[in-house]
């Protein structure tokens, strides 16, 4: 492993991790405020990408960067107002189920409107090409744009929650909903705003993730379970934990797909030769890049065995 490979993989991993954080932050916010695990969160991510694709064809990418998340956020608030709020009194499991049903619906509607294959949602001219060249390898502008947007978003959400009046009301409604209500704040509306805001963050991630990676109906499902892993590994409801876990998983996956070592190489390095007829040969010959898709889930299992509360989570149960 040389320095060039390490630096580029690290940068790619961080940009992917920050994208994951844009998604998991919204999910964590909604979860810690309302106790709702939003199963449709990555469906909003997908909607963001598809909306941006359509809008950017009409009025260009830069306006779409603002309009598409707003549209997704509006849809999210509508869903909270007319569906989720009604289910709230039945408890957390029906709430989860209703978002699960929504993810089904959004997937079908997306396939209906935009078709079942990939859509050509491309990068705008300003983001094409490399930002800089390091030891002969290029680092694309689009990835650095993801990093920029994610950091800006992180800062503004943090400022909004801690430095503004509405942020304080949100925090109050989080821990003491009855008291906030008694002081005259419309707590259900705050919940609606938070849900819409979380959906808008997911939409924003979709706008910039959709053209850097691919925009297709499977994009929600492929990232959905990773986001859950991030939230559990980071610790349920902990934003800082989600940040750490996102980066960890982003870097882990990026490095893993590029590494071509297997247990066989390791054993050969130790001077042990395994014949093809041995029982475990098919397991041993798997390279790290082949097992890359399951690494996040393995991390989840290990985490649950050795540190069930997650990286920065509080003790629960």
């Amino acid at each position, binding site marked *: 492993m040389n320095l060039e490979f390490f630096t580029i993989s690290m940068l790619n991993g961080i940009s992917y991790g920050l994208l994951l954080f844009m998604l998991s932050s919204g999910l964590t916010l909604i979860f810690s405020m309302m106790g709702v695990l939003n199963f449709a969160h990555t469906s909003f991510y997908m909607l963001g990408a598809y909306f941006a694709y359509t809008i950017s064809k009409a009025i260009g990418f830069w306006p779409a960067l603002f309009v598409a998340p707003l549209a997704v956020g509006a849809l999210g608030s509508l869903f909270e107002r007319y569906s989720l709020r009604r289910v709230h009194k039945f408890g957390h499991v029906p709430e989860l189920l209703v978002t699960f049903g929504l993810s089904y619906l959004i997937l079908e509607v997306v396939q209906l409107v935009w078709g079942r294959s990939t859509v050509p949602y491309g990068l705008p001219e300003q983001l094409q090409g490399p930002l800089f060249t390091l030891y002969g390898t290029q680092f694309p502008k689009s990835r650095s744009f993801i990093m920029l947007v994610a950091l800006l978003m992180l800062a503004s959400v943090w400022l909004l929650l801690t430095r503004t009046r509405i942020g304080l009301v949100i925090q109050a409604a989080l821990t003491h909903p009855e008291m906030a209500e008694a002081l005259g704040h419309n707590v259900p509306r705050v919940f609606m705003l938070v849900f819409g805001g979380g959906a808008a963050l997911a939409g924003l991630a979709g706008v910039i993730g959709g053209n850097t990676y691919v925009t297709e109906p499977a994009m929600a*499902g492929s990232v959905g379970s990773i986001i859950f892993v991030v939230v559990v590994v980071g610790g349920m409801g902990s934003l800082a934990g989600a940040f750490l876990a996102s980066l960890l998983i982003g870097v882990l996956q990026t490095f893993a797909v590029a590494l071509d070592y297997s247990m066989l190489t390791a054993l050969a390095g130790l001077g042990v030769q395994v014949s093809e007829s041995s029982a475990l040969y098919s397991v041993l010959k798997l390279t790290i890049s082949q097992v890359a898709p399951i690494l996040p889930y393995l991390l989840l299992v290990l985490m649950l065995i050795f540190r069930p509360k997650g990286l920065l989570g509080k003790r629960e149960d």
Partner: protein
Amino acid sequence: MSSNNIQSYGFKPLNLGRIVIWALFALALIVAPLLFKSSLALTMLSQIGYLIIICLSYNMLLGQGGMLSFGHAVYTGLGSFIAIHAMNMAGKGMSIPVSLIPIVGGLAGMGFAALLGWVTTKKSGTTFAMITMGVGELVASMALMLPDFFGGEGGITTNRVYGQSFMGISFGPQIQVYYLIAFYCFVCTAAMFAFTGTPLGRILNAVRDNPERVEFIGYNTQRVRYFAFIIAGFFAGVGGGLATINFEIVTGADSLSVIRSGGYLLFTFLGGATFFFGPIIGAVLLVFASVLLSELSKAWLLYLGLVFLFMVMYAPGGIASLVMLNVRLARFGRLKPLLSCYLGMALTGSVVVLGAASMIEMLYHLQLNAALGPEMEFLHLRVNAEATASWLCAVAVLAVGLGLFELVRRRFVARWHHIQEEIEKEIKRTEAH
């Protein structure tokens, strides 16, 4: 109060109603293939048979334990895989009769549930749901990585007719497979019903309702969840083994997928998780939806999603709870005044569905069959999906349907509340005596 409670737990020597219901269930399983003789009906009945076991085992987690699992297909699927390897080995000389293959699947499901459940049941509630999903993804992606065991994309095939036939039973004809499935279905349903009455089953309900209190009376909630998870894994594996015998093929991409787990969840919930018999309705619906509805319309997943969403919002107890509410009315003799409302709602509701469905079908036609031209067939009518007239028609039908439905619904709600109040009064009157 306390004396009443003790009485209700008293020993009842003969519960005639229960015996009748179980006898009817057995009779239905025996008679069904004699009534519906086509081969399509027989395959559907076979699928219903093992799906009943799977959905009931799923409900052991969801309904009785409050554990929302997104990875139930892991245990049915791994049960299927072990079962199919056992069948292939049996074909080469190991002596396991086909009739015991489901037990092999069950033991496999149980083993994997004991292994993976140890991790997943560390948490409850929402976190449990996320972890089961993670474990589900883990196993599903592992299946693609180890093609030697899971058969890769093509899956693994087998032949269920091996060994000597016993009294003419070779399990070659589908009808014999059906009766094997029906037998297991009945036994497993009875066993799972019996489980609800065991101390473990009762404490599992308590863990669902109030885990904190269960901890205080000295039970380890995690261990209760773990044991229930293992038992559910066993029945899931039995279902998986039966599915293997039925199809003679297992593919990792399908039978282990998270989509499959989602399907079990969806239909168990639609059938009704709060009653024991709910998942049986769910299993029947699952087969009808995936075999008949998917033939009928390309938009069936959309309809399914919509139905599910409305069900969660308006009837979180599923179809079983709707049935039981009306059984309660009938018991008090108050069902009759509502029948006209039900009829009215069914009629106006079907108008709404007609309007909405025609629009959805036209959309799907435009999206998927654009090459075939704008003409399409909808309920034996030729419809031009691009014409404004057909869209206006559909909108008009939908609007009229919605208006009428709302009118009938309001009358129904008024009557419903009136009747419920009367029943409450009657209960109070009888209690006072």
